[in-house]
């Protein structure tokens, strides 16, 4: 059934009149993804590739209550406002393409999602009254009760999410994902957008299809981590194994290992970690992704490889080994 992007996915694009927004709108439509509406403040009433544009999300939801996914492609200075608006309108899945968002803004958006997700006292009372209304939020009509974890941000700096053969959100796969991605049983979670496609291509070339491929972005703080999405893959029947593409910096690879050790993920995991080269440079040197930065021992290549190995994860030394390591599925 794939995760995050399914046949029920109905997309809103924030920043649809911009260069990236309009380009990706067309790409998604061409890949049979339902793009219902776009939002750009001040440009309501226009159309982009046949998709109606509204001034606000609230307006878009009024006209298209089925929207359950927002794709954000606005400039970095406007990204916090866009994420805040999507969260306040309780869009369950928010995929953020925008790069170079100040970390403080990302931290606030993540905190807002958390505040919405863990039931407060008020939420508890409402929950009692409407215990089986969990789908209502998708319509945007129910203003104030959100079941736990029902808003998910993927990104910032995310290349997108694709469930091959079903649909895609974001620029993953570009104009024509068909040659690179193929439907199957391996889930891929990658910090790098380019490597999400490269790994998918390597699998496809070897006859291994993918259930869902997700670029989580290489920022220091991300809305969804490896572990968050592994929990989704665990529940997904189509997915038999998961490939993690990690890199030095941060603790998300260690968190994934922790999840496996605690029994939260039972399927086969193959991981690749890049960045050994970066450790030969002075500490704090910036290259590649913002999150790929090491201070002290934390986030080092060794720490990640060791904890993943301890959790029983198979480590690929090059991306091209991955198909062999998955072969006994």
């Amino acid at each position, binding site marked *: 059934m794939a995760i995050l992007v399914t046949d029920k996915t109905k997309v809103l694009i924030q920043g649809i009149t911009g260069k990236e927004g309009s*380009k990706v709108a067309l790409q998604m439509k061409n890949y049979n993804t339902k793009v219902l509406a776009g939002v750009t403040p001040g440009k309501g009433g226009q159309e982009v590739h046949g998709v109606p544009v509204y001034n606000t999300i609230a307006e878009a939801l009024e006209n298209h209550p089925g929207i359950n996914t927002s794709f954000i492609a606005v400039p*970095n*200075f406007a990204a916090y406002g866009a994420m805040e608006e999507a969260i306040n309108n309780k869009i369950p899945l928010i995929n953020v393409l925008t790069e170079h*968002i*100040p*970390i*403080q803004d990302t*931290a*606030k958006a*993540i*905190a807002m999602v958390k*505040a919405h997700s863990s039931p407060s006292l008020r939420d508890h009372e409402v929950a009692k009254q409407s215990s089986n209304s969990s789908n209502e939020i998708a319509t945007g009509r129910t203003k104030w009760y959100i079941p736990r974890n029902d808003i998910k941000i993927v990104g910032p700096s995310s*290349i997108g999410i694709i469930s091959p053969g079903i649909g895609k959100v974001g*620029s993953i*796969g*570009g*104009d024509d994902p068909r040659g*690179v991605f193929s439907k199957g049983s391996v889930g891929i979670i*990658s*910090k*790098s*957008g*380019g*490597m999400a*496609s*490269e790994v*998918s*291509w*390597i699998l496809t*070339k070897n006859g291994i299809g993918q259930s869902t491929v997700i670029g989580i972005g*290489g920022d*220091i*703080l*991300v809305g969804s981590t490896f572990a968050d999405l592994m929990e989704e893959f665990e529940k997904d029947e189509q997915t038999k194994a998961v490939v993690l593409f990690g890199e030095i910096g*941060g*603790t998300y690879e260690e*968190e994934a290992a922790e999840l496996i050790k605690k029994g939260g993920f039972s399927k086969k995991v193959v991981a*690749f970690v*890049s*960045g*050994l*080269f*970066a450790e*030969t*440079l*002075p*500490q*704090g*040197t*910036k*290259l*590649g*992704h*913002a*999150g*790929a930065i090491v201070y*002290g021992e934390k986030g080092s290549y060794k720490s990640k490889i060791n904890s993943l190995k301890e959790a029983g994860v198979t480590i690929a030394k*090059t*991306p*091209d080994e991955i198909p062999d390591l998955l072969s006994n599925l």
Partner: protein
Amino acid sequence: MLLYEFEGKKLFKSCGINVPESQLITYPDELDSSLTLRMTGGVVLKAQTLSGKRADAGGIIRAEKQIEIQEKLVEIFSKKINGEKVEKVLVEEMVEVEKEYYLSFSYSTETRSPVMTFGEGGTGAEGKGAQSYPVDILAMSHLRGEEMRLHLGGGILPEELMETALKLWEVFTKYDCELAEINPLVVVKGNPSTRSARSGQNYIMALDAKIILDDDADFRRGEKFPERNLFGRASTEREIEARKIDQGDHRGTAGSVYWDLDGDIAVLAAGGGGSVVNMDALIAYGGKPANYTEHSGNPPREKLKRLTKILLSKPGLKGLWIVGGTANFTDIYETLMGFVEGLREVEPKPTYPIVIRRGGPRDKEAFEALKEIGKKEGFDFHIYGRETPMTSTAKIIVDLVYGKH
């Protein structure tokens, strides 16, 4: 961007955090003795360098007596601290320390939030049992006064540090920091001879400042700081030129990250993630990279042209490796034609092997054109598409450059 101590202390002062009296000097003879004469407790000379462990490397010298200061200044200016030339020295009053603490704000990938890290004891405290506490960034933005104070430090911080913690939080958020650290944060006894207001009372003071600014927030930060380099050397001309390519042009990036390295294989890598994967592979096969650079996000032709010219201006190159994964939306034809335009202008004409491995939109068109150009214009192109594993071309360039083993 990592700030120098004196820059960090300026930001501290602007938010009301106490710092010692000081003078920043660039040449030993700039010292204003009327100022140091008031520092009756002696002075500390602190080399303004970016590397850690500055004290262990001899970057901090005490001068108890006035007559020693000039001589020790000359000494510290002649030093290299972890390879870094001393260009500025902070001359600071010595204070009598009663107690030392460690206090910082940063972002944690474990809690995915800001964290306050606090410990008793100063230098080296990060390793000595300092603990991190998540901070609710939303609560902090709407709470005021006493509530805010308690939210931040209640049950964690000693009462005497509460005010400083609030001020450091202000520094952290107002200036968009990735890290705002005071180590050591000290309690000093009031010094009646220099500051009557402090007499009798304990006084909280930041003796050092370590701030890392979030470069992504540069657009909204009023304070600007000059470029600096973590390699302990001045930026090379190529590094400076490469970083100019993206300025004022947000269409993709090329050259914003560019480091000259010691090797002889030039690398023009694509993608923030793939570039690092490929560097790992190149080194694993025994290749010596001449640089690290990357381009991504579909940069226009002109950017690749400029980057190619800068990259190949390096003397002593034995090969060029152009490598990237399967691009999602970078136009391979445009970027590779930009490369060719740059290549044509390189003097002397490169005759070394050029290995190209790319995949993505318009790649076939690009390869056709490249084959033609290579034949006609006499470039030693070795072209590989997406059917050839990306990292396996590391071995190809290494074998071509150094000969097969």
